[in-house]
């Protein structure tokens, strides 16, 4: 049952969609239909073959100037019509991720599949997530190419939606495997934790980005059983890295008056941020207490994550979120008698889940290197981890490239959603111009 995306999104608005798409940015406005078509063909070629190279790039090459990098660029001519919907992979309040194929593909590209994240502008505005979706696109573009982070291939927009085309990760969520298996053994937990350490090292120390929503639900497995971190909706550049020169220039960019954005000259460089976001069980104490938070929140969350890997549930839990928060700010992590957890694992969890940030592993001197040197990771060859020398402990049952059996099924979108009115468009469309 394959439908095209445009059917799903705009049954009644075909014509409007097409026109709006062509005029949505100045570069597109000046394009003739023939030009657009030929650029779209080139872009489709790029999309179809982006993953042909399999060896991961070294971190310093991932971190090149996004302007010189092909991955993650905003598309000039692609639209939803260039893709064919297969099924939903995940849903959120204002976004839905589809498994897609190329529409009218070349014969050799007909098995190529992607994940297309569709965000509805009207919902993004209503839920006050405009800043967050812009950060998400920007950060994903900057980090595109990292072996353990979902790859933003390109992005585009039309009258009422924003689109991010991502690589498809057929293994589904680590969450699903964890709940099914109840808990992971230390070898499995260490394998995933090691890949996450490399992600955090890259995000924090190279990119100056805090991720802010680490949890098993946001970790997917690729066909070889390696981690892909997805959902950068809360990721934010804090400007505290040792960035290459282009990033430094950008972060000093003057803020335009009238921007409602958190992102601006001062804050971007301040190293800390103030918006409370994340997932209750994984929130760091400084986030709960609004003390201003830094990349240190991700190390706290990694401690919670390893705990949940090993026991099957997070250390601080209650049906009432307020009770979770009270525990997080005041209680040390307690370990159950069953299952038995090694001293090394307990120690690294305690060191991550330290309320005092001047004592929290990952945040203290040495940064990620100190984490890598911890006895919990004894014997881990970090080069091998980065270059994916070993297959993962769980190999997803993927039968063919577009197999989506590892993902849950989601109901269809509800009818009668709110429309992106002309009023909203006049007020907000400028905020979406980066897509």
């Amino acid at each position, binding site marked *: 049952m394959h439908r095209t995306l445009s059917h799903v999104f705009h049954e009644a608005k075909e014509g409007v969609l097409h026109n709006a798409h062509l005029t949505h940015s100045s570069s597109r406005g000046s394009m003739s239909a023939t030009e657009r078509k030929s650029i779209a063909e080139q872009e489709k070629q790029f999309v179809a073959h982006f993953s042909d190279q399999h060896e991961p790039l070294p971190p310093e090459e991932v971190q090149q100037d996004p302007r010189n990098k092909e991955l993650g660029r905003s598309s000039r001519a692609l639209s939803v019509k260039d893709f064919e919907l297969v099924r939903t992979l995940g849903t*959120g309040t204002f976004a839905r991720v589809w498994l897609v194929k190329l529409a009218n593909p070349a014969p050799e590209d007909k098995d190529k599949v992607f994940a297309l994240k569709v965000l509805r502008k009207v919902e993004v505005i209503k*839920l006050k997530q405009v800043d967050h979706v812009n950060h998400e696109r920007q950060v994903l573009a900057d980090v595109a190419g990292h072996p353990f982070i979902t790859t933003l291939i390109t992005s585009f927009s039309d009258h009422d939606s924003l689109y991010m085309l991502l690589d498809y990760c057929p293994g589904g969520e680590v969450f699903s495997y964890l709940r099914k298996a109840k808990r992971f053994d230390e070898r499995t937990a260490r394998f995933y934790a090691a890949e996450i350490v490399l992600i955090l090292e890259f995000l924090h120390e190279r990119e100056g980005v805090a991720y802010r929503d680490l949890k098993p639900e946001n970790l997917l497995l690729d066909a070889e059983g390696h981690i892909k971190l997805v959902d950068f909706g809360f990721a934010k550049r804090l400007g505290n890295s040792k960035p290459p020169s282009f990033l430094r220039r950008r972060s000093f960019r003057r803020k335009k008056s009238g921007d409602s954005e958190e992102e601006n000259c001062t804050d971007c460089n301040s190293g800390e941020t103030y918006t409370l976001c994340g997932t209750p069980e994984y929130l760091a104490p400084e986030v709960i207490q609004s003390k201003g938070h830094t990349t240190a929140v991700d190390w706290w969350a990694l401690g919670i994550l390893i705990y949940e890997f090993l026991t099957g549930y997070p250390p601080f839990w209650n049906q009432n979120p307020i009770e979770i928060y009270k525990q997080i700010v005041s209680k040390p992590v307690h370990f159950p008698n069953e299952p038995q957890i090694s001293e090394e694992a307990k120690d690294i969890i305690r060191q991550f889940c330290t309320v005092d940030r001047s004592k929290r592993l990952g945040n203290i001197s040495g940064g990620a290197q100190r984490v890598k040197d911890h006895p919990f990771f004894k014997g881990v060859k970090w080069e091998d981890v980065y270059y994916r020398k070993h297959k993962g402990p769980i190999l997803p049952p*993927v039968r063919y490239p577009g197999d989506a059996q590892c993902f849950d099924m989601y109901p269809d979108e509800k009818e009668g959603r709110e429309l992106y009115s002309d009023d909203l468009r006049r007020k907000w469309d400028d905020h979406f111009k980066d897509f």
Partner: protein
Amino acid sequence: MSLPSAYLKEIESLNREVLKTAPTDILQFCANYFNRRLESERAQFLLSATKDPKMSGSTFPGRLGTNANPFGDGTSAGKEQMSSGTISKVVEEEENDTITSPTTPSFAFTKGGSSTFGGPFGGDASGDGPPSSFKPTSSEGFPAHYGMGRRTSVSAESLNPTASSNDNWSPPFHSKSEDQIARLKKSISGNFLFSHLDDEQSAQVLGALVEKPIPAKGIKVITQGDQGDFFYVVEKGSFDVYVNPAGSLQPGMDGLGSKVATIEPGGSFGELALMYNAPRAATVMSAEAGCTLWALDRITFRRILMDSTFQRRRLYESFLEEVPLLSTLTRYERSKIADALETQKFPAGTTIIKEGDAGEAFYLLESGEAEAYKAGTQHPVKQYKKGDYFGELALLNDAPRAASVVSKTEVKVATLGKDGFQRLLGPVESIMRRTKYEGVEEVDPLHKK
């Protein structure tokens, strides 16, 4: 080590089947048997999931589809309730373990073939149980009622520190009597959202609380299931708390649900609204006429905290920039130090550091004045004012303090110990080596000649 009881139960019943049927192809028979078992067991599970969608999830406020972020949000409210509900139900049943745990050596999902996911339940389009619907198979070791469903992300509005933006926001101020202030202070002092505030933040928050008269009995101040923006403290009168197990206020006589508590003067409710916009977990209604509440909204609360933290951080960073010993620190390193600085207050005439003592911490003078004295001299050898620093040589070595520093007025200092400094940035010596630290002797009387 003994075998799991669920396994033994499975094997026992397989034994009975084998005895009954006496099959010729044992392997095929067993394979078929387990396939059937799996199918019927999963079907039962899915059935129970759809029949009884609201077991326990509804008691989890704040998770039902608020400001969630796109992918992580995963499911709608109903779905979350469904999965957590069924999981907690399953806990009571003795179920059979059909999926090996990864702690056993045989744990592996093979690629392609008929793995755990294969067979009748691997279907892509059939709407069969996805991996995460497979349940954990025993409750042992798990907290009671632990919700096994996907967890929704939460997010507050993104705010911009006033000092870094163009607007001139200042917190609202509603004057209160001393009695009222004292009562309010007492009410919020034990609350984890307020207990860590400093005096200024606390004063601003107390000033921002606005009086809200509730003239009649039976007025709903907050309604279960509604979006919440305010936190309340009871000044006068009493309020009843109702929870409807359905998760929101329902129409009709019993729509309120059952009364679970009464809040008296000094009590408070709705604190989650100070963190992010989440559905209210209960309905709170005035229990008598002539009640009074104090109200505080999330944006005001968060801005007060953010602005004061932001300003203090920038202040510390600018102070740190002036310390020659720390001049080689990068902006990032300074921000880490600023993050770790602790504020202390001393009344006038306090000896903050004492000549001859071992130096353990360094100080930035945030407000007030202080003076340095050396033994044997009558007059201060140095004056300190806002933005000055002292005791920084303690970061370098263990030499005793070369002078005493005494507060002249009430002072506020920001301080960091040698331990904290080294934890964050490593040994000071290596930082010193980046460039020669010159001119200390002339400017700092604490340096022993």
